[in-house]
């Protein structure tokens, strides 16, 4: 097949799709739903694993001290930590240090915004010796009056292990159902274009067109549906993810600082979504049209 031939087929595919507009749009929409569903759960799991990365991190506990606490209270608290045999390392982050490190994350001068060093709590970053101690230790520390908040990775880890199995299963089942629906709808759309082009197929057949020359335009049409669905899905998912990403990056330093959550890097993630969607979308489309051709195109 020559190059000009290829472009002619692509152009014809567009014309044919625009003829069965309602079904085409419905098919594209189903592809869109399928991809976005798979994409959202995929991104969720990606960010989860991105956050709960190493076991070492899982041993780390961040203890934030109430902002009103004075030096004596903090020293007394430090004493208690030093005496605790479950603890391997202790690192103290003063209000000022917390402020400095937060400041580095932003372009604007926080002082200009009227935010002084006082708004961030001082904290202790503690590493435990034993993973099994983490839960008890955190429960204990949380009870203390001078503790404002405790952040540790067990939170996200627990979430991962308890819920991710279900999330994976539900999204897997839903994704499979939607994908099946998408293939079915695409197959229906292509079936209609096969019918509406029956004369052309008959002519091509008797002119001596090869089977592939007759079939390829329909396969391309299916692929096109998947491709358009993928592009729309990418635009929507990409916009939402980058909005979330920039929202995350510009939340008041406190929030990000306290949750310790990070999002998977924007550029790489977007690229991954794009290729993932394209491959999946085109695959759904081609599968749909192959199904239609097998059943309805007698060559």
């Amino acid at each position: 097949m020559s190059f000009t031939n290829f472009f002619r087929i692509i152009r014809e595919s567009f014309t044919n799709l625009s003829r069965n507009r309602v079904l085409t749009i419905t098919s594209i929409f189903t592809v869109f739903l399928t991809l976005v569903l798979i994409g959202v759960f995929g991104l969720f799991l990606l960010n989860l694993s991105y956050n709960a990365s190493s076991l070492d991190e899982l041993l780390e506990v961040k203890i934030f001290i109430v902002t009103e606490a004075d030096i004596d209270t903090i020293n007394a608290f430090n004493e208690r930590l030093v005496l605790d045999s479950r603890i391997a390392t202790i690192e103290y982050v003063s209000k000022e240090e917390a402020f400095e490190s937060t400041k580095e994350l932003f372009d604007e001068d926080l002082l200009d915004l009227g935010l002084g060093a006082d708004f961030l709590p001082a904290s202790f970053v503690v590493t435990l010796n034993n993973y099994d101690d983490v839960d008890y230790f955190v429960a204990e520390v949380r009870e203390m009056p001078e503790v404002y908040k405790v952040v540790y990775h067990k939170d996200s880890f627990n979430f991962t292990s308890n819920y991710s199995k279900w999330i994976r299963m539900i999204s897997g089942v839903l994704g499979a159902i939607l994908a099946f629906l998408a293939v079915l709808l695409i197959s229906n759309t292509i079936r209609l274009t096969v019918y509406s082009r029956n004369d052309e197929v008959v002519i091509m057949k008797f002119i001596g067109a090869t089977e592939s020359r007759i079939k390829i335009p329909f396969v391309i049409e299916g692929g096109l549906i998947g491709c358009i669905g993928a592009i729309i899905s990418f635009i929507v998912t990409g916009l939402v993810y980058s909005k979330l990403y920039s929202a995350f990056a510009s939340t008041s330093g406190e929030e990000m600082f306290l949750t310790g959550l990070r999002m998977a890097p924007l550029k790489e993630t977007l690229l991954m979504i794009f290729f993932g969607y394209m491959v999946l979308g085109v695959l759904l489309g081609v599968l749909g049209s192959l199904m239609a051709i097998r059943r309805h195109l007698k060559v």
Partner: protein
Amino acid sequence: MIILKNVTKVYKNGTEALKKINMAIPKGEFAFIIGPSGSGKSTLVKLIMREEIATYGEIYVNGFDMQGIDRYQIPTFRRSIGVVFQDFKLLPNKTAYDNVEFALQITGTHKRDISKMVPQLLDVVGLKHKDKAYPDELSGGEQQRVALARAIANNPDLLICDEPTGNLDPKTSIGIIELLGRINKMGTTIIVATHDSNIVNFMQKRVIVLKDGRIINDKMRGQYI
């Protein structure tokens, strides 16, 4: 060129459309297949262009064995025949020129040759001046001429026509059959299934008569009966 040996065609629903047909059509011949409605004319034509497959018997067309031909060989076989239908089967969104061009494109003819051949083909059927017209801007006779130009575009050895004048008035029909006569003189074998006595009597060519799926008459310079 065409040989049928003991050919029987039974459709899926049990209809026995052809019964033990024996027939030979040599290269360069012009043959009509006539008979009452339902006698099996279209079925016979469909077997020859391999749109249908015979239930029993042997069929050879242009050296291809219709029973044993491989799937991938069918396009090659189809390029050695031309087909014309009662309803013309032109693509409505293409001009006369484009409809003929389409046949050459499909078979992978070189662009340079296509632009030379299409005007020649339209000239043969007497429509050189209507190359830019769309099918709905052409009369029935003109549309059938375009279909004929398309059918002979790849220079087939055999031209198969099923009711080529079925949608045309008598005068236009004679024009079409004369054109077929001229194409035949250039060496192409022609088979015309029809119940148009007008054209059969005009041509004075071979006439094969079918009735209830059997050949009941086969005359070299026949008349419509």
